[in-house]
């Protein structure tokens, strides 16, 4: 069991009323699964992903991650937890514009205090694995969208997370680039990485082993 959500509620106050973003979500995910979260706009897909990624709070319920009770943890411990086990991939790539490809990849390692030689070898491995050695000194703006997302995924993988959270990873890409990225996810999943992706596309969802449908914050 990688993680388990029990009766998760999340709401905001609006005009004196509670507007529910997540309503009574129950979900358990095993290691090695590839899960797609689907649903129309505003159904709470991204919110759920952020809750799983511990970037966002919830108001009620229990969340256990690798047998730790996330709901009981202080913010700092929670941050430690996600930094250690979770990698994020974003729709808009979110590479740092001021850093080269190599430096973008290196950044998470700097924060986890890896030694310089260790960082170098990990970055070199990653560049190799994704076939972007030739691009290592380019800045994000010099890359195509697909290439940028490739770097984004490589960056998410570099600290060997157990779980990859991807929020519409192909949303800004054309169909060919999108397919390549999905193939890559499939391949990573085969290597044992757990993946949860948010997507609009049935085709992309088909790459996953399981689909979770949301509507107005509820599982359906």
């Amino acid at each position: 069991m990688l993680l388990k959500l029990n009766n998760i509620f999340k709401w905001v106050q609006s005009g004196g009323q509670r507007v529910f973003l997540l309503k009574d979500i129950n979900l358990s995910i095993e290691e090695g699964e590839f899960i797609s979260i689907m649903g129309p706009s505003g159904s709470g897909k991204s919110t759920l992903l952020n809750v799983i990624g511990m970037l966002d709070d919830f108001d009620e319920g229990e969340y256990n991650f690798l047998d730790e009770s996330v709901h009981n943890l202080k913010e700092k411990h929670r941050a430690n937890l996600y930094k250690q086990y979770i990698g994020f991939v974003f729709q808009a790539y979110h590479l740092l514009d001021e850093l080269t490809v190599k430096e973008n990849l290196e950044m998470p390692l700097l924060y986890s205090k890896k030694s310089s030689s260790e960082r170098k070898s990990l970055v070199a491995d990653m560049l190799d694995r994704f076939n972007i050695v030739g691009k290592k000194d380019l800045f994000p703006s010099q890359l195509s969208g697909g290439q940028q997302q490739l770097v984004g995924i490589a960056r998410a993988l570099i600290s060997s997370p157990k779980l990859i959270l991807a929020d519409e990873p192909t949303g800004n890409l054309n169909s060919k680039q999108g397919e390549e990225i999905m193939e890559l996810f499939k391949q990573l999943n085969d290597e044992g990485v757990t993946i949860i992706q948010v997507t609009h596309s049935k085709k992309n969802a088909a790459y996953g082993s399981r689909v979770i449908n949301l509507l107005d914050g509820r599982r359906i």
Partner: protein
Amino acid sequence: MFKNHLKIAWRNLIKRKVFTAINILGLSIGFGSAILIYLFLCYHLSFDQFHENSDRIYRMTTQENRGSIEFEPSVPPGFAKVFSEEYGYADKVAKIVDIDGYIIDVENNGSTEKYKKDVAFVQESFFKIFNFPLVNGSNMVSLSAPNTAVITENEAINMFGTLDVVGKNFVFENDKTIEITGVLKDLPQTTFLKANIFISFENLADHFEFASGEFWGGITSNLQCFALLKPNQNIADIETALLELPKKHRPNSKNDHTYRLQPLSDIHLNADYGGLNPIFLIVFGLIGLFLIGIASINFINISTAQAFYRSKEIGIRKVLGSFKQHLFWQFLTETFLISLFAVAIGIVIAVLSLPSFNTLFELQLSAQSLFNFQFIGFLLLLLGLVAFLSGSYPGILMSRIVPVLALKGKLNHNDMGGNSTRKVLVIAQFVISITLIVSTLVISKQIEYAMNTDLGFDKESIVMLEIPDDFDAARFNSLKERLKQVPGVQHVSGCLGSPGAADSNWGTSIKYNNRPEVEEFSIVVKVADVDYLNTFRIPLVAGRNFFKNDSITEMLVNEKLAEKLGLTSEELLGKAIEVNGGDIKANIVGVVKDFHDGSFAEDIGPVFIAPNVSMYNEIAVKINHLNAKNTLEQLNTEWSKSFSNYIFDYRFLDERVAEQYETEQRYLSLSKVFSGLAIFIGCLGLYGLILFFVNMRTKEMGIRKVLGSNVGNILRLFSIDFLKLILVAGTIATPLTWYFMSQWLEGYSYRTEIQWWYFVIAIVGIMLITLITISYQTLKVALANPIKSLRTE
């Protein structure tokens, strides 16, 4: 990690060139000014610190009580001997008497050159008290024999063209031949001692008998008395012990003396004894802090405003494992980098502007003094302080950003916080600018008032010619007659003490109408001939002028004396006055209107005017300014006929009067320069902020334009926010400045009023500058096609 921070910082700075430039420019001006001010303060605080026993060296001073208390940096000439022989406090005691303008003849290779030089008559022990060594480093100065002298290296080169002058001679005052017994190393700038020629004290009797003797009857400010105390003395005890001296040596004097010991370090910075007012240094220091403060405020404002653009980066970093403190330090690194550039440029600015700074404040600071450990320490401290102060708030603000919102682009400007802080800081900047502008106005108005108000005498086109001691009545009268014949000369008057010469005033006791006691107040002596009133156009209010005479039989007084005595001017006429302990005795024949003898900081005091040809030391010549050059040449010719062995020297009276406002003039230049800088730095920051606001509201402007708003409306929309801030700043600055400048003006007995429109000028001026700054940026956006700005969203 640090390297990574540095790299990111560098790339961020490059990316936002305009903001970086504004920050660096503002901070460099701040740093540059701070460096200059640091040099200035160091210079003034380092006076006479280099003497081996500087903590044991004291100057003997006198507190005079004649109804009001006055401080004299001197003691009666007899004091030194008594202090050294009858008390056991001092290891050494020495007297030094500075006198200006002696004639010195130097013979070199058969030709004789005449110089006019300031000279100090000094006792040998003076050089055992202070560290003013000879060129060979020893303090074995030999001045005990009469007709000996030591001179500085500079003076040796100046007079003889060589340093090898020991044993050479010069002729002093066309009389004594004096032998040079030693060459002193040049004196440092940071000492009270300004002389370059030191003559044996034994020679003083010929020139200034009073100062050379063991007299107790009065004080001359030419004389200073120094003592090197034995170790571990209690100053208060010594001063108590000295209380008996006046009773013993001046039993009948109404002028109650108290002798005091002034530490050497106090001499330069004690305004009571003619030193620099330390408030001047404090004001200077504050201005330095203000400038650095304004530049730091710019930095904070621009950075917090910019935080929005960096929220994405911060969000990503947080998601990828960065902690708050990482981000905080990352931002601080960036600030540090900017500050480092600014310091480097600041040093360049300081070094480049040092010559003008020196001219402005009449200093000789050198850039070399910048490169020592103390300065590097100061610089590092300043750098650290500025980087930390201006970096930490934006750093905290940015590290607080919530990553989910930042990454979703759901963050808006208000979420970033810092809006109200920014407003407060902008207001603070405006307050400083308004305060500086109003202060500049008040100071310049006060000086203008002093310069242009009728002083009660004519100071225009009056040339003051110095005359040597060496003359008699016949010689003086013949010179005066010849000067009168020079074309362009209107009036000529011989005198001791022109109006407006309060610096060298001679104040003394007065006994009115044979009363048994002398009066509680003192009277200023003006010795002058019958043409004094004509020359300086001083009107009579009662009686008549005295008749032409070479010695005192009749005298004039001013209205102030009548007021002090509680009488009318008419009542004074015909009454006898005794002055200077009965030395001078005459009847009052006329009363003149009061005139301003000193600066406007001083009250007008009682004055009397009476003739005594042997005491004149100047001739005042009222000339027609149209042909001044020719007239001056002819005055020189006539003067030189009478005093062929001397050097012709003159000054215009209005310059001498203006000199009374030297300190004020410096304050004025200071506040002009620095309020200019403060406004400039403030504008830079304003420009940066406006640039940011305009960018931020581009979309809003697009929407407004599509909905039918015109350029004028948009401009107004932007300006009003800033104008409000200026008004708030004005409301704060007005009472503050009013209070402080009123306090400053309190120091003047005759002063201008603070006008309400000074504040209007300052506030409206700042508003205009702001509007101009705003308009440029806003118009650029307001005139653009709105479709552009809307499409980019």
